[in-house]
């Protein structure tokens, strides 16, 4: 059977609903009798809560209830740790501190909720917030990662005696002795700052406890509905079957929507259980800057030891990681950083040391990239600075260090975010680098075009970088595929979807297996009433883990179809084919039966069946990979800097990606485009600005700039196709890849554009202002010399 759909540019089946305003998002849920919630949030990043008086708020007309931590009684509990630290790493220090639903005695992060008002309307609820008197005694805030660890620093969690959340190291080979052999050691301090995910849809929840049916329904903008259901059931003493969590259309996830539990999820569920009426809370944009998780803050002291011909002997990277006030997400982010410093390169000796620090900031959990962009930035910067010192071409130094195609599977000997050894399953890196360099015209540009443009006084630069992306990690996903009596196929899976085109790409797999039109495949995702098992949409795993589970379930149904059809059509299974929604005997098209009819036969209403017969044409199956599949890529860009305004224009952008089998190139390329756009923001526009008191100074989309249409260039996408041997489809994830290399690429191209200034970029994100400062500093140090 040749695939008809997998690999094709199939337009998305979910689009008509989204384009006509008929797709249900959480904020569109409207239930008779629904109440509205608003949260009182701390204006201080760090403060003691001496007392809180909500009596005036309670007596405001239209207010149904006001709750504080005290009111929750025994239901007040810390959220569960979402990710535990890897048990496989030795000598680890890890202090678990998880978030609270409402502040009881101490505020640990700016915007932490102190109380909730439930009222007839959001207007009334917000007005009532003004009636609450919270006696907060401000404390010195913890923000700077190095100062946080000094003796005498204010403490986020006093009982720990320091702000150290975790400490661990991993080693491959022996860096110390490698360093002694080195001709050149590049040593740098590298800073990466915090940003937000800024999904266009803010978070939101509608929680509805129906006392008559004794059922709790939660519409939630989550990336992981099944764990939310299981967790809430456990937390509030309900049976799992009493709780239904629905993640309908979700307006972008990018990581933070995988977090559980947010304070609001715990509080709204508890509140509806008290009141017995539906309650809606929709985060407003300003709240999104405080109440939704963030990422990227790290300080690296990194060094690379090389030979005089540019070969890496080893890398040492010791870094601080900002986890915010709590650490429910374990070590996923810093582990990703450690792993991605190794990149696609042959690094025989590596020492990585991570210190995780508590600060008075929002919790850090993965944001598209999840620690990987920081790792990519570190290794690519070190290579660039080494190339500069060695007077070597930037593409050449990478070529010299790439892992060759015959080493796979390649064990990098450290533990990754999935607690398994970092084994690169497959790859062919050199062609990716060459493709990116050729497409952008690297050689002609540096030989002819750039000198010509420079002579015209233009500041143009080119960059070429590489990266790997660990994707598609376990543990598992599952799916159920059913042929309905109408002949239509329904597919249910546990992962939620936030715009990745799952409705289409997953349907393509099923349509090919069962020989039906893709329009006859109906996918249900993100509703716990439809599928019971699963973990969620994260770590670029939809196209790997969920897709292979769907593939397995579809194959099982195909087997059932063939067995039954063989009896009905009185022909051996080998002679049957599935096409056009029919099973037919090859070469005898008149001998056929439709899938719908077969489904009816598979579910008899009277009579007897053979013992052991399963009804229906339906199968449930699961997929869990041994370890993750590693994608790779090379990106290249040409940019121009206006030295007057420091504005940057990206002239060309090339992204070459290898994520194994491509299910749908239209969707895949779209993922790359969006990833790059976020990476551009991460490089030059987006940075959360905090003052010394931990106040966030730019909490709006007018002050925190995400890339608009004018900032994103046309992105040319190229591909490599190294199939993963770890799953039957051969896929690797692609959701985050686009974002990973952009800051490193941006830095390289900027340095090249401003080569006459001897600029060195060892921090991200930059901004026009910051670039101006860096150039000033470079000038001063040059003239001072």
């Amino acid at each position, binding site marked *: 059977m040749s695939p008809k759909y997998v690999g094709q540019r199939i337009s998305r089946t979910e689009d008509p609903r989204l384009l006509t*305003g008929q797709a249900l998002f959480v*904020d*569109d849920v409207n239930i008779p009798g629904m109440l509205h919630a608003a949260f009182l949030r701390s204006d201080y990043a760090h403060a003691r809560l001496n007392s809180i008086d909500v009596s005036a708020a309670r007596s405001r007309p239209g207010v149904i209830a006001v709750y504080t931590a005290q009111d929750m009684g025994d239901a007040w509990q810390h959220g569960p740790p979402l990710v535990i630290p890897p048990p496989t790493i030795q000598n680890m220090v890890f202090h678990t501190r998880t978030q609270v639903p409402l502040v009881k005695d101490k505020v640990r992060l700016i915007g932490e909720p102190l109380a909730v008002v439930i009222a007839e309307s959001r207007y009334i609820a917000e007005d009532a917030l003004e009636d609450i008197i919270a006696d907060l005694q401000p404390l010195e805030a913890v923000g700077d990662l190095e100062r946080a660890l000094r003796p005498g620093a204010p403490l986020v969690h006093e009982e720990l005696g320091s702000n150290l959340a975790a400490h661990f190291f991993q080693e491959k080979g022996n860096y110390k002795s490698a360093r002694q052999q080195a001709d050149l050691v590049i040593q740098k301090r590298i800073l990466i700052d915090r940003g937000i995910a800024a999904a*266009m849809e803010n978070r939101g929840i509608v929680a509805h406890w129906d006392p008559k049916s004794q059922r709790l329904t939660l519409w939630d903008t989550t990336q992981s509905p099944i764990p939310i259901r299981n967790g809430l059931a456990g937390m509030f003493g309900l049976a799992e079957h009493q709780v239904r969590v629905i993640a309908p259309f979700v307006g972008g996830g990018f990581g933070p929507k995988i977090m559980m539990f947010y304070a609001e999820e715990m509080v709204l569920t508890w509140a509806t259980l008290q009141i017995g009426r539906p309650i809606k809370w929709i985060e*407003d944009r300003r709240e999104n800057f405080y109440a939704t998780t963030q990422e990227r803050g790290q300080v690296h002291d990194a060094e690379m030891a090389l030979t005089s011909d540019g070969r890496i002997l080893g890398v040492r990277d010791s870094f601080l990681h900002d986890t915010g006030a709590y650490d429910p997400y374990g070590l996923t982010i810093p582990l990703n950083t450690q792993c991605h410093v190794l990149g696609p390169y042959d690094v025989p000796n590596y020492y990585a040391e991570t210190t995780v620090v508590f600060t008075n900031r929002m919790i850090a959990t993965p944001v598209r990239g999840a620690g990987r962009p920081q790792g990519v930035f570190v290794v690519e910067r070190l290579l660039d600075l080494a190339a500069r010192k060695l007077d070597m071409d930037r593409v050449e130094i990478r070529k010299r260090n790439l892992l060759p195609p015959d080493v796979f599977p390649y064990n990098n000997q450290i533990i990754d975010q999935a607690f398994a050894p970092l084994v690169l399953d497959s790859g062919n890196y050199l062609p990716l680098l060459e493709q990116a360099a050729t497409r952008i015209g690297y050689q002609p540009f540096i030989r002819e075009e750039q000198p010509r443009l420079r002579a015209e006084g233009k500041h143009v630069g080119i960059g070429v970088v590489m990266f790997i992306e660990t994707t598609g990690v376990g543990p598992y996903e599952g799916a159920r595929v059913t042929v309905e009596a109408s002949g239509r196929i329904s597919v249910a899976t546990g992962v939620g979807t936030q715009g990745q085109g799952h409705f289409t790409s997953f349907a393509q797999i099923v349509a090919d297996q069962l020989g039906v039109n893709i329009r006859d495949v109906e996918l249900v995702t993100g509703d716990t009433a439809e599928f019971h098992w699963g973990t969620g949409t994260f770590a670029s795993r939809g196209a790997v883990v969920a897709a292979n589970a769907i593939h397995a379930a579809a194959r099982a149904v195909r087997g059932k179809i063939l067995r039954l059809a063989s009896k009905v059509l009185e022909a051996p299974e080998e002679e049957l084919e599935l096409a056009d929604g029919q099973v037919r005997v090859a070469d005898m098209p008149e001998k056929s039966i439709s899938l719908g009819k077969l489904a009816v036969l598979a579910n008899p209403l009277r009579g007897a069946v053979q013992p052991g017969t399963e009804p229906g044409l339906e199968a449930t199956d699961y997929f869990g990979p041994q370890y993750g599949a590693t994608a790779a890529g090379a990106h290249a860009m040409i940019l121009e800097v206006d030295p007057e305004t420091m504005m940057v224009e990206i002239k060309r952008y090339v992204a070459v990606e290898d994520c194994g089998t491509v299910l749908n190139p239209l969707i895949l390329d*779209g993922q790359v485009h*969006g990833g790059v*756009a*976020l990476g551009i923001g991460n490089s030059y526009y987006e940075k959360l600005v905090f003052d010394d008191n931990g106040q966030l100074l730019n909490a709006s989309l007018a002050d925190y700039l995400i890339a608009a249409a004018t900032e994103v260039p046309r992105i040319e996408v190229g591909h490599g196709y190294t199939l993963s041997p770890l799953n039957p489809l051969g896929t690797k994830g692609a959701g985050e890849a686009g974002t990973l290399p952009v800051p490193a690429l941006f830095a390289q191209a900027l340095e090249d554009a401003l080569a006459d200034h001897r600029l060195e970029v060892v921090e991200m994100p930059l901004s026009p202002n910051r670039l101006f400062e860096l150039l000033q500093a470079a000038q001063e140090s040059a003239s001072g010399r």
Partner: protein
Amino acid sequence: MSVHPIAVTINGKAEYLEVPAHMTLLQMLRDRLALTGTKNGCEAGECGACTVLLDGQPVNSCLVLAVEVDGRQVVTVEGLAQDGTLSGLQQAFIEHNAVQCGFCTPGMLISSQALLARNPSPDEDAIKEALLGNLCRCTGYGRIIQAIQDVARGGGAS
């Protein structure tokens, strides 16, 4: 709180409502008329998810009061398809994969529609300019621009 009667044509249909003075057009559409296709991304004029046509001009409906639309014409995303047939722009958005999560999409469609109405053959810069007020976090904009160009080449939004 004062309440005002208004008469407004929405997607070609006359509506008579009583609205409080502080109610925004966005709230009126979503909460009173169940036209939830128009999205709320910021309620502050920063994201463009709430864009609708007011007398043919694109506006952020979160910044317009419901009382201001008395006697005027509003078109929302629900009014773009005619008798179940998608508009040329909607069709082009599908063909070019200009939609990912779809949250910005209603606003994008309205802004593009307005652009093509005033400039049937915009160049790339004009398109980018017209979309400046519409943020998208998923697509990187390229596909949206292509979809608009495609419709422009075919002779304007139908």
